[in-house]
């Protein structure tokens, strides 16, 4: 497949197999070795690059970014962060001045993330850099550098404009094209953000042909607010979903803030996170709690199901060959949602338990409850017994304590490297208590405690 994009300001045309990663191509074919491979799975950020498309610049992990995903876009690597004649970018100068590099291996990735944050005038550095691991510095000098550079102007060489009119016969341009093609090629692999599929290639070393890339289907990437629901296209990135959720369901937004990292959220799509059927994806529990509907598409046929019905069993979803997730819709509702993500590390970690609670209380009685968990079963799953125990009861600590006793009817979690079964069950029960205590104004999150 022939791919055209801008690399550090120059147009390049590449003939490459569809699952050739940008990182391998940069290092092996172009000799641009500034971009590093630290983990080859999108967890360390040493390979961070800036990719600019019509939505503007964003950071992505080059190790799980396939070349076709770049078609028509502009890529900037660490080599393109300095200006003409080697003039340093303000974040580069600040990293030197504040001793932000030690071994230097993570540094190009940090510099790229910092330069992108700088361009976007973001000052939430902990979030902007959550996807960049450093083993030497303890991060303090890097943050000092980021702060020091913040007030400097954006160098003009950083401004990229994506290419125009670069259609590619191999890349579907809209959902209809995709649907028709996929119905004819039901064995194909669909690739949206590649934050999961990328690992099939870089870690499992699988050959994925045939593949279809979804990123040019603009009509899949829209969030539309209708009269009684919000319609989120499957191709919306988690960055888009985060922005939307901030206004409507702040706790869901806080969950997404901790979902992957900036680089991962810029690539990962909500559709991908649902369609892969993982029992530990963070969106499904929240969406189940919000009573979301899933829109599935096969050729010209569309159907709508309750999202919890999509997850049948571990590795088994309610979707036919050639059928794909087109959208998810969330009914408008008062915001009672709280999402609790439990992991070994706050940022960029997969949940051991993810509990989402949507409980309506009127006149101090529970009138409705939708509670769902990730990490507690082979699928994202509702806590039906718990819900039933709560509904109709007084909203009190006693009710919560009673409901806590029925969790084991809903869940028999497993032990693995993330957590033991005992811990999972106890914390799931305690999350309900946390919901209650928050509702009466208790301080419950260590993230909100100031020194």
């Amino acid at each position, binding site marked *: 497949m022939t791919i055209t994009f801008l690399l550090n300001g120059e147009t390049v045309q590449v003939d490459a197999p569809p699952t050739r990663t940008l990182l391998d191509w940069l290092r092996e074919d172009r000799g641009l070795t500034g971009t590093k491979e630290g*983990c080859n799975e999108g967890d360390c950020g040493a390979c961070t690059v800036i990719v600019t498309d019509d939505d503007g610049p964003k950071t992505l992990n080059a190790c799980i970014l396939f070349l076709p995903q770049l078609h028509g876009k502009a890529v900037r690597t660490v*080599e393109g962060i300095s200006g003409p004649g080697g003039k340093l970018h303000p974040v580069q100068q600040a990293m*030197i001045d504040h001793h932000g590099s030690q071994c230097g291996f993570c540094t*190009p990735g940090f510099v790229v993330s910092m330069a992108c944050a700088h361009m976007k005038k973001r000052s939430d550095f902990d979030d902007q850099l959550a996807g960049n691991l450093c083993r030497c510095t303890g*991060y303090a000098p890097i943050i000092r550098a980021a702060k020091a550079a913040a007030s400097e102007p954006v160098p003009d060489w950083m401004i990229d404009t994506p290419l125009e009119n670069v259609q590619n016969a191999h890349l579907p341009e809209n959902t209809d094209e995709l649907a028709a093609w996929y119905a004819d090629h039901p064995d194909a692999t669909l690739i949206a953000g590649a934050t999961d599929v990328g690992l099939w290639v870089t870690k499992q070393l699988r050959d994925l042909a045939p593949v279809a890339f979804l990123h040019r289907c603009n009509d899949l990437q829209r969030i539309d607010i209708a009269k009684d629901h919000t319609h989120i296209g499957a191709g919306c990135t988690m960055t888009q979903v985060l922005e939307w959720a901030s206004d409507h369901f702040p706790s869901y937004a806080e969950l997404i803030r901790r979902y992957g990292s900036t680089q991962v959220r810029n690539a990962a799509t909500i559709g991908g996170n649902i369609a892969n059927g993982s029992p530990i994806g963070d969106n499904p529990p929240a969406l189940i709690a919000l009573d979301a509907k899933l829109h599935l598409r096969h050729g010209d046929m569309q159907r709508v199901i309750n999202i919890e019905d999509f997850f049948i069993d571990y590795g088994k979803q309610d979707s036919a060959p050639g059928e794909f997730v087109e959208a998810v819709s969330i009914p408008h509702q008062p915001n009672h949602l709280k999402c609790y993500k439990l992991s070994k590390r706050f940022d960029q970690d997969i949940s051991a338990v993810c509990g989402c609670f949507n409980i309506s209380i009127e006149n101090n009685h529970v009138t409705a409850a939708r509670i769902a968990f990730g990490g507690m079963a082979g699928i994202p799953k509702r806590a039906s017994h718990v819900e039933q125990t709560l509904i109709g009861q007084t909203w009190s600590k006693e009710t919560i304590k009673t409901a806590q006793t029925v969790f084991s009817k809903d869940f028999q979690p497993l032990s693995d490297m993330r957590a033991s079964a005992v811990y999972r069950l106890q914390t799931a029960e305690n999350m309900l208590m946390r919901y209650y205590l928050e509702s009466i104004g208790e301080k419950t999150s*260590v993230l909100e405690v100031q020194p």
Partner: protein
Amino acid sequence: MTVAKPLPHDAAHLHVTGQARYVDDIPTPAHCLHLVFGLSDIAHGIITEIDLDPVRQAPGVLAVLTADDLPFDNDVSPSAHDEPLLSKGEIFYLGQPIFLVIAESYLAARKAARLGEITYDERPAILTIDDAMAANSRFEDGPRIYAKGDVERAISEAPHQVRGSIEVGGQEHFYLEGQAAVALPQEGGDMIVHSSTQHPTEIQHKVAEAIGQPMHSVRVEVRRMGGGFGGKESQGNALAVACAVAARATGRPCKMRYDRDDDMMVTGKRHDLRINYHVGFDDEGRIAGVDFTHLMRCGWAQDLSLPVADRAMLHADNAYHLPTARVTSHRLKTHTQSATAFRGFGGPQGMVGIERVLDHIAHFLGRDGLEVRRRNFYASGGSISRTIKPHTTHYGMEVTDFILHEMVEALEVSSDYHARRAAVAEWNARNPLLKKGIALTPVKFGISFTLTHLNQAGALVHVYQDGSIHLNHGGTEMGQGLFQKVAQVAADRFGVPLAAVKITATDTGKVPNTSATAASSGSDLNGMAVKIACDEIRDRMARCLAELHQADPAKVVFRDGHVEVGADRLSFAEAAALTYQNRVSLSATGFYKTPKLQWDRIKGYGRPFFYFAYGAAVTEVVIDTLTGENRILRADILHDCGASLNPALDIGQIEGGYVQGAGWLTTEELVWDDKGRLRTHAPSTYKIPACSDRPDIFNVALWDGQNREETIYRSKAVGEPPFMLGISAFLALSDAVAACGADYPALDAPATAERILAAVNRVHA
């Protein structure tokens, strides 16, 4: 003076622009081959059948080697000759290399390596401490024991006793740059090797053995590593040897780097251990005697486990005078990765033991931990006189440079320790769900290799006739800033600007027989060796110029880029040219060995260390008693670098060391399943601290002092000691858990949210 300036890392500009080259970035000659190991997928057993035809037939594969194909030594051990490059038929851990794929591309090699069909006669695997103790599976004949006085009597006669046990997990190095090597075959069987290693001489030695050549045929070059932390002291041997063997077999350049998952599955990590303790003490918490048992999981091969376990024993006192003590150390052999060096080299493990004991004593007596700690401190170095004799450690070394009384007093004030401790208690009284904790812990860390002969270093310095200087020494750069510190020394000796000094890659052809850059010793040893070499050249220049100007050589002054001879002032370049024209050598080697060391590791007696480096930290944390979630709110650190060679680089080591140490004891959890398979073998499952995990408030200051011993500019080593400041985070967590109930938390490490919740449950119960 270039020394003592807070200059940036020598390669900072190269780092931030992406120009700094690591092994995988070095352009390779045409036809370079790529290597990947085929790994075992059982922990213990015998290979009964091995079918590598599918590997050989895979696209792009040139050759596949097994142990039978190795022409010379099949060994990559740094110590006991017990670590074959490729399995000789028996499998000792899950992830052990069995065969070596040589292919035209890295991807082809990776794909092919998964196609080996190996049949095993599986044997029971010894995986845990209890398995190993039951099977008496160990290195050395029995446990090592270091003892001082009649510990049993002291404990039993003391007013109080406590007994306890703590599990302390291992730690993956997670250097951002994985292991990597390239071998370039030369004429006549010679080999040039680029390796990401802390120990070029070891690479040279193992490669020479493996290709059947003397060491003079092998030249190893290391410009920089993308992090080492001890993980590249011995663990790079396998890749360099594999490259050299394959390069010899094919006549083509060969490169090998581990994919991150392979890196974590194959290489050794920090030793995990269980520490049992029994301590006797008085009403005020003064220790009368303490009996420690270290049960250390060393993995399948000896590697560096004996000196690691020794150093754990040597730090079982940390900063505290133990009137009587016994440390019993079991070095257990298990069917897991061979545990190896990691920043602190056993010291952190030993130190956690005694800090746990003091925490336990303080809790038992209901006293403030700092008060109990201070009561047990060694006598102040300043108060030692003819009448007050220095305390001795449990291994018979006098502690004459103890400065923690003064340092801790200063930190108490700067961190506002007492007021904050009261504020924490008050906050906890108001908050039923979230609990804060605070702890102050000190560090006293012994500086020197405990294998005394390693305490030596060499340097090679050239001054060219234009006055530019070529600097080389045996130390390696892994991010710690060694090259810059040593260059500052060289520039200072010649009185020239730093830009006049060219830092060059570590090279076994320039400085031979080097020790690993390890044990925090890099700048102590290499700084001195470089100083000696520079002074030799400088003295020759001075003599030559003095003679020409009929002046006193002792009065020739090198400063500000000039040389002052009597009334004349020459630029350094003119001086160099003149010296050259007068046929005086402008090249010199320098050699240094650490004085005053005398140590018997079997008896556990003597002076293993030249001096001690000190530090102290106060950490404040908060925990959630519903989930065990927790975070560090604030850390205040005061650390002793003597007279710092470069305060900016030293502070960098302290900040980074603290966060890495706190990571070890909190989020970094290694999990093996019951088959011996490491389940946490990538950053998706193994969680080192991320950006937001650093303390919200992070105050780091250097103690203003000088090393009492004659080290380079009276500075102190800084690589490892600050790592152990992270122990304060662990004990702050313990303090927060203790606020949940009456019982002692007995927290194990790493204190993941799960372990904290378990401890909360225990003290609630």
